[in-house]
């Protein structure tokens, strides 16, 4: 498809125009964090660093009201009815300025919530009405490892528009018809030679990354080390068992359901849950199959690098964004743990 060039200063009018029809979620600074917020201009938008939070919240919000309920009137037999109202999300959205790994994260979500077998109505309602505008990475961070998990700094999979950065603006390419419509709203000029230059730059970025990790033995070795609790205790010793890694991760998709409100009225809420928390697997009996953080961290690794690929055609459930590494208060490095599994040998 045609490539066009958008000046940096024209990002603002472009967002304004898109925002007339859709909610545009773009990264903005809050404190030292960079978070996705609904924007109706491009003034505060930060496009040069990796956002702290991941774009998953736009299609899978931290809190989703599934239904609201009120207590009905009493029946003759003494029972009490409940009236419920479904609350399906509506409205169109744009994710503006994710990185290729974030877009890949959404594809990993789709395998779980919106595919031939399963259609989660809430997820699908958002996902199908959301377009993704991705910025290629010219300078991968030292903690990025998309090249080890099937991605690349210029990977366009899952994006409706790719933006390839140059100093003064972006070469833009629409990859879907939805993307074309959005791109038509941007003040632009033909990209000409800039297209080749910008794409080459993004294409070369992968060379600045370390060589891809060897993950060939991970699945086999995971079976071997699964019951070696000492191994997992060693690797989880410094983990605090908090929720940072899962909540910032573009691919962690687990949720919890609670009824919030009173006996008279309230809502059924779906909220993010995380496998690093003790409560995640606490059973009503009091038993907890993952009572120690070693078992929980083992699950986090296992889910991303073993269980998910077993279910989904060998695709990994990690997009290599490195958020869990940079944001962890203990600087736990998932790469080191996966590497230790790959190199695991019986004592």
């Amino acid at each position, binding site marked *: 498809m045609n490539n066009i060039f958008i000046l940096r200063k024209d990002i603002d009018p472009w967002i304004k125009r898109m925002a007339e029809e859709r909610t545009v979620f773009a990264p903005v600074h809050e*404190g*030292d964090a960079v978070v996705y917020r609904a924007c109706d201009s491009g003034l505060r938008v930060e496009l040069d*660093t990796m956002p702290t939070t991941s774009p998953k919240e736009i299609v899978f919000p931290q809190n989703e009201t599934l239904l609201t309920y009120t207590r009905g009137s009493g029946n003759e037999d003494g029972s009490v009815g409940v009236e419920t109202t479904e609350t399906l999300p509506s409205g169109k959205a744009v994710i503006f300025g994710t990185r290729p790994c974030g877009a890949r994260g959404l594809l990993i979500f789709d395998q779980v919530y919106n595919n031939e077998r399963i259609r989660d109505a809430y997820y699908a309602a958002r996902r199908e009405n959301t377009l993704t505008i991705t910025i290629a990475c010219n300078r991968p*961070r030292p903690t990025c490892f998309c090249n080890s998990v099937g991605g690349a700094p210029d990977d366009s999979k899952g994006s409706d528009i790719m933006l390839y950065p140059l100093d003064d603006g972006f070469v833009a390419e629409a990859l879907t018809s939805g993307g074309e419509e959005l791109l038509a709203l941007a003040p632009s000029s033909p990209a000409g030679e800039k297209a080749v230059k910008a794409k080459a730059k993004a294409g070369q970025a992968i060379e600045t990354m370390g060589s891809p990790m060897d993950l060939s033995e991970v699945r086999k070795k995971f079976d071997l080390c699964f019951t070696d609790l000492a191994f997992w205790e060693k690797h989880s010793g410094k983990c605090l068992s908090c929720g940072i890694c899962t909540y*910032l991760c573009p691919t962690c998709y687990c949720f919890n359901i609670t009824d919030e409100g009173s006996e008279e009225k309230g809502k059924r*809420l779906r909220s993010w849950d995380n496998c690093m928390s003790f*409560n995640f697997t606490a059973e009503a009996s009091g038993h907890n199959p993952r009572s120690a953080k070693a078992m929980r961290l083992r699950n986090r690794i296992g889910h991303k690098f073993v269980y998910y690929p077993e279910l989904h055609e060998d695709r990994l459930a990690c997009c290599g964004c490195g958020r869990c590494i940079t944001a962890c*208060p203990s600087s736990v*490095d998932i790469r080191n743990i996966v590497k230790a599994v790959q190199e695991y040998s019986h004592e």
Partner: protein
Amino acid sequence: MNVLETMKKCIREALPDLDMVMGWEQGFDTLHATPLFMETAEDVDRLILGPTCVQSLAVHLPSLKGKKIGVVVKGCDSRAVVQLLSENLLNRENLVIFGFGCDGVVSLSRLKKKLGALDFIESAEKKDDRLCIEINGEQQDLPFDDICAPKCLTCSRPNAIISDHFAGPQRTPRIPAKGKTALEKFEEKSLPERFDFWKAQMQRCVRCYACRDSCPMCVCRDHCVAVSRNPHFVSQEATASENFMFQLIHVMHLAGRCVSCGECERACPMDIPLGLLRAKSTEVTSALFNQEAGLDQEAVLPLLSFNIEEETIEEHD
């Protein structure tokens, strides 16, 4: 022998009688240290001590009760150990404390506000009262006071206040710079302004509970009221008001126990200034009970004791 080598030597000598010793090693770049659990003499080679050793390792101690553990502590970390001991949450005889005189630690949050994203750091080194770092191919030379953890600016106890081994020289405590504290400045704002401030801050909390889980004094761990289902004290909904509610619970449960280590604020991935809330609670409890947490192993917690007539509380008639 410099401080680090002295410390390594102490640890190597003590290690045979211990299950492990906790210290720090370099993390994924030169600005990030990561906890190091040393079990063998070779592990000790990786130990570092310096301005990136931010984590309070005291947070891990209660969960290791029953083992013989050594722990390396900065001045502020040692207060958490003292407080845990005073609350009977640790066995002193199973604990070997390795202290040193701390020279201050870096605040990545303050550094980010000065330099922008910190992704491409080549080197970072403290030279006297400056931090020299190479970032994005440029050399930056910053006054340490501009980028250190706020707690270090007013640190009156840089030397571990409890230790079995102390490596290197004692540091001279800071004379806090004159001027208003962050809390005093904040309290100059009107009540509606302060409320709006917290609403905006709490809005971005993701309820990851890292503030709680990095707090050495938060010892309920897996049984926190915030996640209790029955009773359902706090809604799962991560709205500003619910998030604030959780913070106030944390503050109240830490009243008179908070050792002002700042770990909650440091751990927060969303850069929410949680320290302000803790500072307020510490101000109130120290004024009421004339007590500071984490200084006296024999002290009884003000909220665990009861006097018919509290010296500092005026009774109603």
